[in-house]
């Protein structure tokens, strides 16, 4: 087995505490423009992340070709530059999930034909770009203590870009869905089509403070952007807005934020992290109180604690979400008057994780007396993330994930600055 031979070769040449993480990814996607296949993509890629000690210094490299062992050794030696001040425990958890997946040969033509029928049903629609695909990840970790763990994950997805046009006005939006059946896909897409058509006829709103519904995808995107504030490296470096706030109330007591990577229902399922630490269910915020800092092995060693199973070549999360409410709510009726925000843009630049400030382009609906009376777009919502968490008044039961990392249900929040 080439990994074990590589480990032996590296040990024989002076390296110690070797861990090799093998990630194999296979991804297939088919993109349609109307009824024609426009793009057909297949990706089959394997990568190896090697961590080790050489001459009492730590090294971390990721490679896609390990066939030349001498070259691998040279690269490791040349980049062993960090003092091993805080030795790591490189033991692996005892988990083997040897599930085998295959890329299926699903023919998406039938589903796509149903999708394209919406072009006839809704005359304002000018186009739908659709892509469908599957993603398989295999992960194996080996170490120089002859331990080995194995896991695999598969999910499918459907992604749409919907375009509408009326006179000189264009509107469009994206939708991405994971592990949904055909009926669920068609229903969600039709809802999105209606949203896009509503945006052809928008009203201007006044700059004001508003009580708002934030739909699940919007909440998930905001939560995803603030994941860094929970990480141990940010605490250690003094660059998180949650510094000195552990065990303090930082949110409404409705708010519980959970990470649950073991959950089969979620596409981010992983039994162990990329360092071989078992993942676990944990509450980062429990009824408004900040409870848990996320650690990988490096920062667990610095803080003299144990890894929380969040080591993904740096600290990261899988299947993190705002705990949903127990029952579905009529949020429009509860809100009564305000805005429903169903789309935000500018996430990579309009978020400041040091101050918590958020300023984003948004679009959505105007709500009066519990009814949607019109749509609006090209306005800006501004707030502070901690104020957002404190101002959550209601949480729906409609949890959805936007990625393998993050999900959320829809919420009602008071006091959002809306600029128009």
């Amino acid at each position, binding site marked *: 087995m080439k990994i074990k031979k590589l480990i032996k070769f590296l040990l024989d040449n002076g390296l110690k505490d070797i861990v090799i993480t093998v990630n194999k990814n296979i991804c297939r996607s088919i993109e349609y423009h109307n009824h024609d296949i426009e793009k057909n993509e297949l990706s089959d890629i394997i990568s190896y992340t090697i961590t080790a000690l050489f001459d009492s210094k730590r090294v971390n490299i990721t490679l896609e070709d390990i066939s030349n062992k001498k070259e691998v050794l040279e690269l490791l030696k040349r980049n062993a*530059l960090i003092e091993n001040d805080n030795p790591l425990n490189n033991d692996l958890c005892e988990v083997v999930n040897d599930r085998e997946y295959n890329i299926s040969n699903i023919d998406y033509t039938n589903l796509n034909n149903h999708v394209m029928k919406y072009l006839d049903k809704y005359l304002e629609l000018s186009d739908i770009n659709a892509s469908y695909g599957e993603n398989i990840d295999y992960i194996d970790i080996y170490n120089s203590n002859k331990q080995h763990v194995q896991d695999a994950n598969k999910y499918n997805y459907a992604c749409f870009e919907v375009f509408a046009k009326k006179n000189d006005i264009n509107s469009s939006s994206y939708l991405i869905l994971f592990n949904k059946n055909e009926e669920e896909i068609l229903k969600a897409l039709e809802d999105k089509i209606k949203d896009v058509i509503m945006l052809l006829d928008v009203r201007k709103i006044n700059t004001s403070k508003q009580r708002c519904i934030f739909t699940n995808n919007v909440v998930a995107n905001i939560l995803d952007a603030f994941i860094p504030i929970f990480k141990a490296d940010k605490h250690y470096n003094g660059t998180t807005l949650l510094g000195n706030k552990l065990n303090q109330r930082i949110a409404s007591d409705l708010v519980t934020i959970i990470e649950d990577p073991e959950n089969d229902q979620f596409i981010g399922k992983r039994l162990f992290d990329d360092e071989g630490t078992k993942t676990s269910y944990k509450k980062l915020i429990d009824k408004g109180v900040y409870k848990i800092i996320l650690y990988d092995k490096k920062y667990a060693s610095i803080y003299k604690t144990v890894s929380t199973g969040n080591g993904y070549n740096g600290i990261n999360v899988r299947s993190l979400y705002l705990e949903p409410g127990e029952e579905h709510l009529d949020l429009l009726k509860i809100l009564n008057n305000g805005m429903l925000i169903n789309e935000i843009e500018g996430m990579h630049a309009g978020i400041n994780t040091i101050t918590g400030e958020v300023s984003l382009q948004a679009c959505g609906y105007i709500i009066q007396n519990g009814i949607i009376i019109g749509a609006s777009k090209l306005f800006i919502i*501004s707030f502070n993330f901690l104020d957002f968490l404190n101002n959550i008044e209601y949480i729906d039961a409609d949890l959805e994930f936007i990625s393998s990392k993050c999900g959320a249900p829809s919420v009602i929040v008071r006091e959002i600055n809306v*600029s128009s």
Partner: protein
Amino acid sequence: MKKQDFESIINYIMKKGADFSELFFENSLTRVIKYINNKKDDVKVKKITGLGIRIKYHDEVIYISTNEKDINKIYLLIDKTFKLNENKEVKISLKRLKKYQDDVVITHDEFTNLDRVFDYINSLARKSSSLVSQVEVDAFEYDQDVIIANSLGLYRSDHRVLSRLYLYIYVTRDQEQRSVYYAPGFKMGYEYLDTIDFKKIVPDLVNRAIKLLDAVAIKGGEMPVIIGNGFGGVIFHEACGHGLEATSVSQNFSVFSNMLGQEIATKKVTLIDDGTIKKSWGSSNIDDEGNVTQKNILIKNGVLNRYLVDYINVDKMKHEITSSSRRESYKYAPTSRMSNTYLSKGTLTIEEMIQSIKYGLYAYSMGGGSVNPYTGDFNFAVREAYLIEDGKVTKAVQGASLIGNSKDILKQVTMVSDDLSLESGFCGSVSGNVPTTVGEPTIKVDKILVGGSE
């Protein structure tokens, strides 16, 4: 991979009946060395090696990315995705390999003084003010070797080198923390460090961070905005750059589709995309389809002059190729993308612009942004801004977003100064993240929506 391997794969594909095929072989090394907490903290190295195979058959594009080395397994991947088998008679021979490479004075391997550079920057920052609570410096090194071959016989290689320094300074006062960020990037080796005057830049960054501690919230709304030079060019990158890429134009998914020759901006706007600027972060010798890069005047005195078009879209758009095809790595099919995109300079001064505004914003330093090319709606973030009141710059303002629509905003640019500069960044789109620069001289936009939290 050898020349005969490239020829074998291309002939295999063309024999099956493809109209066109292209191979992109890549071997690249990225290294990031991180300094924080007064010491070297981490080194991450990533070496990727793989092959991207692009096949065109009528209107369908097939793309396969793999780091499989066995040619028979590569054929199996091709058969799995391109099922046609016309068994055509073909014999494609590649031309002689044409080699390109970047000129580098100090290679990444040769430079061993990073610790001293960090200590110098760290010391300059902390001596500037006792409020400096953290200094982070990340040194980014990128070396890429590519070989591109296609069924037209093209066979070219390029050795590309990029270097960038990320500098983050944090100040803290009474538990309130603010940060500033400076990240110059170059198509150079470590000789780039000689082009940066740290003695001037670092204390200036510290002062700017301290001013942010006193930044006030403003009431949002439409107002005139002066957008600073350099990274302020992100307004053009978002407002029209993406809308001029063939990716969206060819399918009529851009507000600027079918508008060549039309006036889309004020006469003060001349927008250029130039992949040939020496040593510039967004430049390359050849694009990722193997074509020698060129300077493209996209908008000339307000009139739409040219789109950015890659090989696949040339026939669809009946437009000349512009050598703008780019991709993050072999894992992505290439498409038309920006390189170094900038507004050409005007003649006014910043003082003249500020004096022309009764109440507005001076957006001194910008963050990134995004755009929907179909609607033209765009946004970008402001990292540092100041109020303008009665023709004078007054208080620092908490960071905000600016949003607008492409078609409207280009007609609101009424003043352009003479201080053109370009700054580095990364642009994300369908072919992945690619290094780009954006640039402009300081400009005045008569009216744009500013987000506020007062």
